[in-house]
């Protein structure tokens, strides 16, 4: 019998994900995305990864959603109207079929291949100590590479966005 919390959380996640894509105003779409990310964090808590859920909320909903909101506020036409589609995309319905197909394929594969899904061992609360120790022991090198990725993303993002006064960009300017 699937317990109620899981059903409620997954309903929240799916509903706000659809709302994020369908909302007319982008600001409400971002709020929908934020709510679905918090729902995913709630699922992590259900699975015993509370430490992870907190950082998922802090990084995603705290930082990435703020950056998206900031970009939406920058990316508005001078007329002040928020940038949104004039008319719905012609191939919207194709999108639904493709998406449904992929989702069914993945879910069906899992159900058919592993009909007897392993029942979870009794509740297991990960010890932060050995989580940190396993991170330091086996994933140290990956951490250094991630440092390079973060450096590249920050430096790249900034050089992209800065306006060089020497060559004027052809399009509209600030």
């Amino acid at each position, binding site marked *: 019998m699937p317990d109620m919390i899981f059903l409620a959380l997954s309903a929240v996640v799916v509903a706000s994900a659809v709302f994020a894509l369908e909302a007319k105003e982008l600001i409400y779409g971002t709020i929908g995305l934020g709510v679905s990310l918090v729902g995913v964090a709630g699922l992590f808590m259900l699975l015993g990864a509370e430490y992870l859920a*907190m*950082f998922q*909320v802090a990084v995603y909903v705290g930082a990435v959603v*703020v950056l998206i909101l900031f970009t939406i*506020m920058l990316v508005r036409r001078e007329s002040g109207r928020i940038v949104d589609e004039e008319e719905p995309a012609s191939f919207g319905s194709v999108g639904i079929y493709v998406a449904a197909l992929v989702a069914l394929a993945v879910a069906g594969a899992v159900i058919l291949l592993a009909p007897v899904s392993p029942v979870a061992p009794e509740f297991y609360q990960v010890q932060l100590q050995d989580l940190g120790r396993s991170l330091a022991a086996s994933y140290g090198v990956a951490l250094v590479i991630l440092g390079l990725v973060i450096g590249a993303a920050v430096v790249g993002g900034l050089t992209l966005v800065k306006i060089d006064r020497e060559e004027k960009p052809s399009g509209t300017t600030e």
Partner: protein
Amino acid sequence: MTQLQVLPGLQEMVDSLVKIVTSRTFLEIVIFPGLLNVLLSVAFLTWLERKIIARVQLRIGPLYAGIWGVLQPIADFVKLLFKEMISPELADVKLLMLCALGLMMLAAAPIVTIPFGEAFVIANMDIGLIFVFAVMSLFPSVLLLIGWGSNSKYSFLGGLRSLFQQVAYEIPMWLSVLGIVMLTGTLNLAEIVRAQQKVWFVIPQVLGFAVFFTAALAELERTPFDLPEAETELVMGWMTELSGAAFMVGFMAMYTKFYVMSALITTLFLGGWLGPAIIPEPIWVVLKTFLVAVVIVTIRGTFPRVRVDILLRTGWMRLLLLALVNIVVTVILIWLGLGWVWRV
């Protein structure tokens, strides 16, 4: 006399209701560390602030409502409840109300993890500190939405400034706390307080305390960092377009956050409930919290306001540097083998 045949269902419901209401967790949530405590301390801090600021500026401050004007915050509370909630044109009233509600819930959330006694905490989570970190990092997006929703220059600028101010001071604040986490090895606030049995964390982590205190000032938007609400330039910052009950909820959220940050400072650095046993443990926590609040308020009375870009550069350069230096100091402390003093 036959006892009245009460509906069978009703009897159990009433019994269970009575059992719930008198249960310890309910009392904790609604009475002491929970709701009543937050509301009363918000009122008290408002009064305290106005009195101290008045004393600093050699005037008397609220006097008539009750003894020394103690009932002044309650008078304001009732007055604001009955004022009209003006919705500016083209403003997004739904968004404003949602964000005012979100602000209050986020401001009050960390109270749940702050220990007021040996076993006197609402939710003893072993990731308490990260829960506070996650809640604190949600504030910028709510403030930006309020600034955006109220569709007025002042509140949009105020929302932006408070977003960037909190963003600039969030990272040094949490890196300064990292020193404590390295010493104790836990994230549970109750264990952090127990680790301070011998020596409070103010002494080994003086640098961390300084960075955390400054960053808390900026996080609370208090002078010298109260740019978003700079009376002279920005009227009331992101609260400009809120009116009536919404303004009161926003104001209350800010003072709840003020109370929660002072309680956090006492728990992390000033040994929460530790103190000679004459005074019971929760009173120690409340006493230290109000002491920290008095210091913060006197700072508000005495310091000038800082310019925006200086504010951002200090946040990112100087405070972050000091936080990293504090981590290096802690690393040296542990390598020197002094870590056992606080090892839980």
